[in-house]
C-alpha cells in the first residue's frame, strides 16, 4: 500500500489520530515501534494487538519495527515499552555474532507474526559500508532471509554512510542480492537541532537517492522518518514515506530514544503546513501570510487555516499524501523528478515573494531549509542519473 505511513509515538490519543488520518485518506498505515507501543497494555497505552486491530479496522497497513538500530545506539535507555517485547536471546544484545543475530531475528519475527505484521528484519545503524558493523548488517540480513525468504529488510545509515560513494554502491549491491521484496531505509542523525529538515549534506542525500533508485528497480522502498524530504525519495523510486506530527516522527532523532533528564511540561511549538511550498512554517508566520493576502495564504496552505493542532495534524498529512499521490501517479523517474522540480520552482517563487513582502516573517533561512537544500539534492541526483 504505497503512501504515507505514520510513525509511532507516545502521545495520548495516538491510535485515534492514526485511525482518523487513515480513514480520511491522509495516511495509509502505521509503523509500530517497540519503543512506543508496549506488547502488553499499560495505562494510557493500548497493547500492540489492540493498536494493530484498530489500524486494520480502517484498512491501514501495520508494520512492526523493532528499531534495534536505535536500541543499539549508545545512550538509548527509554526502554520501558521496548523491554516488554523480550527481543534478545541468551547470547545478549547486539548483532555481532551468529548466535545473537539468530536469536534476535527469531524473536522479532515471532512477535511480528503474532501481530500479523510483515517480517521486517532489524539491523544496526552504519557509519561506513566498509566497516566491521556493515559486515554484521549483511550477515544479519542474510540470516533473516534464511529464516524467512520473503523477509523485509532494513538499511539504516548516517550521512557519512550515505556519502560513501562506490563503497555504498557495493554495499547496496550485496544487499540487493538478498532479493528482499521491501526495503525500509532510514537516515540516522547524530543530532537534530530543530523541527526543520537538515539536508545541507547534498552528497549524502544524493547517495541516498541513488541507493533508493537502485533498490526500487526490483523492490518496494519505504523511506522512514522523512516527511516532506521523503518526496525526494519518491522521485527516486520509493513508494512510501514515514511521517507524523512530532519531530521524532518526521526525522530520526536519537534523543527520542533517550529518557529525558528533565521531563517537565513541554508545549510543542505550533506550525502550519504550507503545502504549495512543501514547507512547514510557524503559526505566527502563517498568520502573517493570512493577514497579507488571505487568498494567497489559502492557496499556499492548500485549504483553510487549521483552527487547531488536531486539524493541523490532518492538514499536514493530507498535504503530504496529496503530493505523494501526484508523484506516484507518474510512470517514469524522469517525470517524477520534473514534477518535483516544478513544485520547487513554484515554491521558490512563493518564498521570494513572501520574503520581499513580509521579510520579518518569512526569511531567507526558511527558503534555504525548505527549498534550496532540497532542490540541490534533487538536482545532484538528477544530474548523475541524466534525468
Amino acid at each position, binding site marked *: 500500500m504505497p503512501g504515507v505511513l505514520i510513525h509511532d509515538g507516545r502521545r495520548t490519543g495516538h491510535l485515534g489520530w492514526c485511525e482518523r488520518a487513515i480513514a480520511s485518506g491522509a495516511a495509509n498505515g502505521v509503523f509500530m515501534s517497540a519503543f512506543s507501543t508496549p506488547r502488553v497494555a499499560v495505562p494510557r497505552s493500548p497493547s500492540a494487538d489492540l493498536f494493530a486491530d484498530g489500524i486494520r479496522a480502517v484498512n491501514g497497513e501495520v508494520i512492526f519495527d523493532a528499531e534495534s538500530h536505535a536500541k543499539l545506539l549508545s545512550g538509548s535507555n527509554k526502554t520501558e515499552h521496548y523491554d516488554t517485547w523480550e527481543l534478545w536471546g541468551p547470547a545478549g544484545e547486539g548483532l555481532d555474532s551468529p548466535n545473537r543475530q539468530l536469536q534476535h531475528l527469531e524473536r522479532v519475527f515471532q512477535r511480528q507474526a503474532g501481530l500479523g505484521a510483515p517480517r521486517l528484519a532489524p539491523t544496526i545503524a552504519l557509519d561506513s559500508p*566498509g566497516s566491521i558493523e556493515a559486515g554484521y548488517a549483511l550477515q544479519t540480513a542474510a540470516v533473516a532471509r534464511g529464516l524467512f525468504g520473503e523477509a523485509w529488510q532494513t538499511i539504516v545509515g548516517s550521512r557519512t554512510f550515505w556519502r560513501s*560513494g*562506490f*563503497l555504498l*554502491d*557495493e554495499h*547496496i*549491491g*550485496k*544487499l*540487493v*542480492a538478498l*532479493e528482499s521484496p521491501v526495503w525500509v531505509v532510514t537516515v540516522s542523525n547524530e543530532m537534530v537541532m530543530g523541527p526543520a529538515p537538515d539536508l545541507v549534506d547534498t552528497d549524502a542525500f544524493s547517495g541516498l537517492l*541513488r*541507493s533508493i533508485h*537502485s*533498490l526500487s*528497480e526490483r523492490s518496494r522502498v519505504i523511506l522512514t522518518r522523512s516527511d516532506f524530504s521523503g518526496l525526494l525519495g519518491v522521485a527516486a523510486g520509493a513508494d512510501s514515506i514515514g511521517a507524523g506530527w512530532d519531530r521524532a516522527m518526521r526525522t530520526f532523532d536519537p534523543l527520542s530514544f533517550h529518557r529525558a533528564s528533565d521531563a517537565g511540561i513541554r508545549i510543542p511549538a505550533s506550525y502550519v503546513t504550507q503545502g504549495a511550498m512543501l514547507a512547514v512554517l510557524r503559526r505566527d508566520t502563517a498568520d502573517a501570510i493570512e493577514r497579507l493576502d488571505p487568498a494567497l495564504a489559502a492557496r499556499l496552505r492548500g485549504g483553510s487555516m487549521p483552527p487547531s493542532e488536531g486539524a493541523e495534524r490532518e492538514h499536514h498529512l493530507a498535504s503530504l499524501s496529496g503530493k505523494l499521490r501526484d508523484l506516484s501517479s507518474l510512470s517514469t523517474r524522469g517525470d517524477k523528478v520534473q514534477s518535483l522540480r516544478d513544485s520547487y520552482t513554484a515554491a521558490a517563487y512563493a518564498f521570494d515573494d513572501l520574503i520581499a513582502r513580509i521579510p520579518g516573517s518569512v526569511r531567507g533561512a526558511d527558503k534555504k531549509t525548505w527549498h534550496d537544500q532540497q532542490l540541490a539534492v534533487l538536482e545532484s541526483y538528477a544530474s548523475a542519473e541524466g534525468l
Partner: protein
Amino acid sequence: MRRSRLRQHLIYGEVDKRVGKQEMTPDEIYEEAVAATGVTDVTPLRPGGQKLVFRGLLAGNPVVLKIVLLDPGPVAQNALIRAHREVELLAAVDSPHLVSVLSDAIDIGDEPSAVVWLEEHLDGNDLALRNSMEWTDVNVFRLMHDLALGLAQCHGLAVVHRDLSPGNVRHTAEGRFVIMDPGFARHLDQTALTGIHQPGTSGFRSPEHVPGGSPTAASDVFGLGILAFFCRTGQFPIDPDGDPAAYDFRLRSQQAPAVRALKPDVDGELAQAIDRCLQRQPARRFFDANELLTYLDQTALGRA
C-alpha cells in the same frame, strides 16, 4: 627429462626468480605433483605467472594439471583454505559450460609450497575476440547464454570467478563456450596474495575490481557484459588504455555507453541484457548469472 621440461617451462613463464622463495625446489614440487595426481606423459601447456599448466594423461584420458606456487605467510595460507573449499565445491559440478575439476586440491610440501589439481582437457581455443568468428547477435547471445550457464553453477555455490576474460573462455571445436579457471584459482594468484590488488584482466575488470572493492557475483555479470559488448562492437565499454589509476577511476565513475550507441542494429533484447550487465552500480545489474539466464531465456533469441 621431466626436470628439464619443467625448468624450461618455469623460465619461459618468468617465475624462476620466485622459485627461491619456496621451501621445495621447482623440480621437487613438480615431481611430487605428478606423483600425487598420478598423471603421465606430462607436457607444458601454458606458462604464466605463478600458475603452471601442463597437459597429461590420467588413465589414458587427457587432463590438465595445474600447479600454483605459494609464497610463505598467512595471506597465502588463508587463500589456500579458500581454494580448497572452492575446489571441493566445484568438483561436484557437472556443466558443459564450466571446466570440470577432476581432483581435490592437493597440497605439496609439509608447509605447502604449492597446490595442485586436475581439470578436464578442453579442445578448441581460448576466445579470440577479434578474428575467430563473426560476432552476430546470435553468436553473442550464445556466448552470453553459455557463460551464464557455467557461471550460474559457480554462483549457486557462492563462488565468484573474478576474472572473466578471453583467456579464460574456451570455444570448443563443437561450438560450446566453456569457462575456465573458476574462482579458486583467483585466490591463489599472486595479485590476490598481496591483499591489496584485485585479480582481473585489464579491460575486463568491474568497478568492484578496483583496489578497495570486493568482487561479487554481480562483478562476474559485469565481466560477461564486457565480453559481449567487446564481441559485438569491437570496443571496450570502459577504455582500459593509459594509466591504470585513470582506468580504475573510469571504472568507478563512468557509466558504459549503451551498446546500441555504437551498434544501432543490435537486437533490442540483447542490447538490454548487455547494458544491464554493464551498469556501473552492482545493484542495477543482474545480481547473478541465474538472473541473467532467466532474462536471456525469455528473449526472442532465447526462445528461438
